[in-house]
Each structure stands twice: as C-alpha cells, then as structure tokens.
C-alpha cells in the first residue's frame, strides 16, 4: 500500500491503495465514485472514460501509481450542485440516453473534445466517441447532442 495524491474534479485527493490498483478500482471502490462504469475492462468499450490531464483515457488501463500529480475529471465533476452541465442537458433534451450504461463515458469523451474544440466538425464528433461503444446503438442522437452542446456553449460564450 502506498499513498498517491492527485487532483480529482478540482480537489486535491489522496488515496492509499496497492500500487497496481487501476484508476477505475480506485474511483469506484476506494472513493465510492461509481459514475464511472466498467464494461470490458480492457480498453475496448470506453465505458470507463475519464479525463486525465485534459485528455480522454480509459480508467481501466491506468494504474493509480501512474497518476501522482495528475489532473483527473470524472462524470461526478460535470455540473455542480445538482445543476447539469451543457453536455448533460443536451443529452437529456436530445434523448441521447437509452440504457444509460455508456452515457458517463460518452459524456467524458465529449467533454474532452469540447475542451479542445468549441466548434467541432461532424467528423471530429464521431472520432471523439469512436472508442465508446453504445450497445443500444444510439450514436446518431449522441452525436447530435454533442453538436447541440457545442452550439449552446458558444452562444453562451463559455
């Protein structure tokens, strides 16, 4: 066991876990943040997508000991005080959620895209979620929701 410190959703966070604990295990089991889902556990499905240092990554393929000093954002960091962020609102309004299991990962991939590009092309939107599987096959609505969120963020100037 060792103590690892990183920034999680804007707060300095320390955890004491074995050095080979994955970020996904640390989030879900040590920190109780169960919004990040486990799908395949092998980096194929994207259900566990989080943002590490501004980039989308699979939490199942990172060991916590690699994250000392890192800046991590999870689904729990979107929105605040019960108010949804623009992407979450767009997903709800567009009906981009079916069973919901892929949704946190989709949202984090989309957030990572919008951190980099405020006016992404259709191609860029599709590429940003190409590593996220939705087995309800709802990709069209998801892509539409991401586009809407980008438009609404630009209109509000954020």
């Amino acid at each position: 066991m060792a103590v690892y410190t990183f920034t999680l959703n804007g707060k300095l966070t320390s955890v004491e876990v074995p050095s080979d604990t994955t970020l996904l295990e640390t989030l879900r089991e040590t920190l109780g943040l169960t919004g990040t889902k486990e799908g395949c556990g092998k980096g194929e499905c994207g259900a566990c997508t989080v943002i590490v240092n501004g980039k989308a990554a699979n939490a199942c393929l990172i060991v916590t000991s690699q994250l000392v000093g890192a800046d991590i954002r999870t689904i729990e960091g979107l929105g605040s005080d019960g108010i949804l962020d623009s992407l979450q609102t767009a997903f709800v309004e567009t009906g981009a959620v079916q069973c919901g299991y892929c949704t946190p990962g989709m949202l984090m991939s989309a957030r990572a895209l919008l951190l980099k590009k405020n006016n992404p092309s259709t191609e860029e939107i599709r590429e940003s979620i190409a590593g996220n599987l939705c087995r309800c096959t709802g990709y069209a609505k998801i892509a539409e929701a991401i586009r809407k969120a980008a438009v609404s963020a630009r209109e509000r100037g954020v």
Partner: protein
Amino acid sequence: MDVITPQNVKEVLEELAKDPYAGVLAGGTDLLVKWKSNIITPPRLFTILGLQELNFIREEEGYLKIGPLVTHQDLAESAIVQRHAPLLAKACGQVGSLQIRNRGTIGGNLVTASPAGDTIPALVVLNASVVLQSAQGERQVPLRDFITGPGKTVLQPGELLTAVLFPCMEVTEVGFYRKLGQRQAMAISIVNLALKATLENAVIKDICIACGSVGPTVVELKKTANRLKGHCLDTSELRDVVANAGDETSPISDLRASQEYRRKMVGELLYEGLQSLRRQSAG
C-alpha cells in the same frame, strides 16, 4: 504486482540491471490488458510514463528523433512529424481509439512487436532504427532487425528502448499509409501497408513497401518494389505489376480475415497507394 516509479532513466537502468526480468510499463494499453488476462504476470513493473526525458520529438541533422513515450495522438498531431514523415502521422492516427492513442506510446507499440502493429510498417519504410540503452551502454538497431517474431524482439534483459530515429523525408519523396480493419476504431489491422517512394516526373526511381498483419513480422515487398522501379505512375500497366504483390506475404486465416483475402488486399492497398502517390506528385 508491485508497480515502482523510478525518477529518471539512470535509475530505471540501474534497477533493470539488478532485476532484468522486471517489466517496464509505459502507456499500459497493451501490457495492462495482458496482465488483466493473466497472459503475463510480472512480479515487478517499472512505470516510466512520467519520465519527460523520454518524451520528445526532435529534428537533428536531417533525422527525426522521437522519444519512446510520445503517444500516438501526439505523433498524429505533431507538425514536425506531419512535415517530415506524414505517413507516420497517418499511421499513428489509426491506432485504437482516441482513449488508446492518448495513452499508448510509440515505444510500447514497437516493444509489443505485434504482427499487426500499426506504426511498424510506416517506420520500416522510413528506415527507422531504435536506440537500446542499458546500464552497460547503448546500441542502435535497425527496426527491421529489432522485431524477430510475434511479440519477440532483440531487446535484452536490462535494456530499455530510449529513442526511435529515421531520416526526414526528402522533398522528392512521397509516402502513403493505409490500414484495413473491420471498423475504423479499435480494430486490429487485417492488413496495413506503408510505402515511400522517390519520384522523378511521376516515374518511380525508388520505392519501399512494407505490410503488417500478413506474416509473423512486418513483410517488405522487395520483388514488387523492384518490378515497380522505372514505371510511370500514369501508366495503365500498374494494375498488372501489383496484381501478385500478395504472393510475397505469408498471411494466416483467422477470425478477422482469410489468408486469400489478406493476400488480395495487399495488392489492392498497394494499388491504392500508387494512385495516391500519383495524385501527390501531380499536386
């Protein structure tokens, strides 16, 4: 499994000298999958991902020198790589998904030595070498000789891959890279093909062709390359020249594709590549 975080390359090499069979963890997109599936069970791993001295892209005396920890996405987006080796930028952009490209590194792709490795054919046509360092010293090995079989390299216990380097492409050279998979993202290549050619008025002066996923390691189409030399890209006989290109490969049939299909696709991708060169030389 104990994951240890050395502070610099010197420390990694000292530790590897003491415990040569310890594993080295970079982006983890391959190693951690194998570990979770119990394919490998290293008692100790050195995680090197935080070592900035192994994360660089430099142009030095006509060579591009790349640190092993540069991620596929950083290479795909790098202006220097796009200028001096656009086919490598293209290959890196085709790896896995964005999540995988954001973590997986070029050093990892080479040491993993998958027959389907996406960057390997690109780096072979670029005439790349790798720098291998140990506590005893360093050596440089051509990439062609580095990978010896599926998952096998000449990397010795105690050695660490510390750089990849290749000559920057000349203005007279053009390149092409294409990956064929069952879908665009997260697909293991059915066939991938890279080529680099020197052209003079649309005539092929020199050409180097390498394919992945059609043999135990990368396969260079040397006979086909020889046949193509002297041909003009505008001529209609190119189809016939490349028709049997797949005969130089030794693919297997697996759940992704049959041997016959792979062989046929080698010729198809090569033809597509030659058409791309023609457009590039015209433009």
